[in-house]
């Protein structure tokens, strides 16, 4: 299990690094965060209110960085990410907790589906070089070059409207109460469809391409030729021999590029006003809600780490060579 142990050590280290980075981010802000909050109110708040805000946030800059750092860890371990400015006095953890399921559902599901479909198409494209499916490649290249958010904008412009099946934003119909009933779930699915399709289109191309290339490379391996020589059914050769091996680099690529993917998908949420972390991040940026930004960044990083870990486990299951015994 050496592989696993090494990975775990790596994750622990990365998590530590991300958390520490996170600690220092607000300490790089020019001026103080409260000022940003006041600015944000933009005339809706009298300047006298400023004084009350300082009292509210109870900022104490006179503490040493060290003790702040330890305090910070203590808070983190208690799940305390501080108070959000935008939603004061709500806990950042509460605000994030509200948005996280949406992101997990949208980004998680679409990423996985995108990976699966992309890999499947890539497998076919690589296996049947020169067939119609291979002709998809230039198209997908073009699609994958389009920024996620722009594709989303176009989708909104073209596909949504008063009479359209696709809603232009939000996670579910206004007026519905989140609940595990069919009406709500149906509405949530309906609202998630367009963002999901956007993410799928943008993200799939990458998988198609890398899988195709791996397939082309793997198809020339001796063991694939041997599989043909063995007279195995074509499907078996394609799936069990070629794709199974071509998948390995793709899976580790998947793990590694999760960070990029998440970055991209967050934008889709922004465009579709989807009530997830990406949109929250956007709000946080707009309103300079640093505790919120920090929290989001931390959660995203940790989620990506977690997803990475899962992908690693998958890799371990897929590649017997990493399962080397003791």
């Amino acid at each position, binding site marked *: *299990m*050496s592989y696993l*142990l090494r990975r775990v050590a790596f994750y622990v280290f990365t998590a530590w690094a991300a958390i520490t980075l996170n600690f220092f981010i607000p300490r790089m802000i020019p001026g103080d965060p409260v000022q940003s909050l006041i600015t944000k109110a933009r005339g809706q708040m009298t300047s006298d209110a400023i004084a009350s805000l300082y009292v509210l946030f109870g900022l104490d800059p006179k503490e040493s960085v060290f003790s702040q750092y330890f305090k910070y860890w203590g808070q983190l371990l208690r799940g305390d990410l501080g108070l959000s400015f935008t939603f004061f006095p709500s806990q950042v953890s509460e605000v994030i907790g509200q948005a996280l399921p949406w992101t997990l559902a949208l980004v998680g599901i679409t990423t996985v589906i995108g990976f699966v479909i992309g890999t499947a198409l890539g497998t076919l494209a690589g296996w049947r070089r020169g067939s119609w499916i291979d002709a998809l490649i230039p198209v997908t290249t073009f699609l994958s070059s389009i920024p996620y958010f722009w594709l989303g904008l176009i989708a909104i412009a073209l596909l949504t409207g008063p009479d359209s099946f696709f809603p232009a934003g939000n996670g579910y119909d206004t007026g519905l109460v989140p609940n595990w009933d069919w009406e709500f779930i149906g509405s949530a699915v309906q609202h998630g469809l367009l963002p999901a399709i956007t993410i799928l289109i943008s993200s799939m191309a990458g998988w198609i391409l890398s899988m195709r290339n791996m397939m082309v490379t793997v198809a020339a391996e001796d063991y694939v030729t041997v599989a043909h020589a063995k007279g195995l059914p074509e499907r078996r050769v394609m799936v069990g021999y070629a794709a199974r091996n071509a998948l390995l680099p793709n899976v580790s690529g998947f793990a590694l590029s999760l960070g990029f993917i998440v970055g991209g998908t967050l934008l889709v949420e922004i465009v579709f006003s989807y009530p997830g972390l990406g949109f929250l991040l956007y709000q946080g940026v707009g309103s300079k809600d640093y505790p919120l930004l920090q929290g989001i960044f931390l959660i995203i990083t940790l989620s990506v780490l977690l997803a990475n870990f899962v992908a690693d486990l998958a890799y371990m299951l897929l590649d017997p060579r990493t399962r080397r015994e*003791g």
Partner: protein
Amino acid sequence: MTASSMKSSASATTEVVLEADGLTKHFPVRKRGREVLSRVTRMVQAVDDVSLTLRRGRVTALVGESGSGKSTVARLLAQLYPRTAGEVKLHGKPVTATSGKRFRAYSRQVQMIFQDPFASLNPVHTVRYHLTRALKIHNRAGASKEDLENALTGLLARVQLTPPERYIDKFPHELSGGQRQRVAIARALGADPEVLLADEPVSMLDVSIRLGVLNLLRDLKERLHLAILYITHDIASARYFADETMVMYAGRVVEGGDSETVTQQPAHPYTQLLIDSAPDPDQIAGYRTSEKDRGSGEPPSLINPPSGCRFHPRCPHVMERCKTDLPPRFDISDGHFAACWLYDKEKA
């Protein structure tokens, strides 16, 4: 040519140039899993207590199966690896340089040729670059452009790549395997060394080209009185090209001596197995199952090598003693020795 030019060629043929004494190399194994917690580092005992001498104008062959540590010996001799133990002496003086000026000075005298001519030349550089660098590093490029050009021409001529202009500006991929290996040799000669360490210089070459490179090496030995270490796993070629042959098994030298003697009257059971296994065209359709089980089993692990004689698990003549005691070298005849308890005269 400095020291060597003063000596007569007669005496030169026996002069010891490079000596290795008790050369040992253990590679640490990457720790895994729970071992991280333990303090013991596991080692690949790639080379253990190898002693050999290279003489002026003579070819010494080092044979042995894959993974027996031949290349490691060569690299230790070239000072490319730090050694775990033992000593390398150049002209009787111990050397320890693995980097810097001292290493450069050493590499001027001891040069190495690699197994794979397809890999040992940088694909992005021309023949000219390779050779010029070799000359420049060892300050043999001369003062002017012409000097350099002459030196280059000379080098190419020495490895029979003539006319030089046909080869000098080519990239490695534009040359055939044999030509590449010649360029590699020319590069080694660029330092004007006294010792050539040739690590399987022909194993990657086509049968018809091999001979040319080997003949070239022999020719260099004779003309330039180089001391050559010829590493191979093809024991037949050792018979043909080497004056002396040493046989390695699992990181240790098990037998050595005059090539003809070692190949024709192998003493160590491993050498015997090796020679038995080599294809023999004279024994047409001789691939019938032999009565005796030929060297059953696999090469030993070098991480936990067998105790005593490392060959004992596979040895048909194994004795109790082989399993516990490490056999020293026993002289069999003049210059011919084997590290095998079978030749322990006292025992008898």
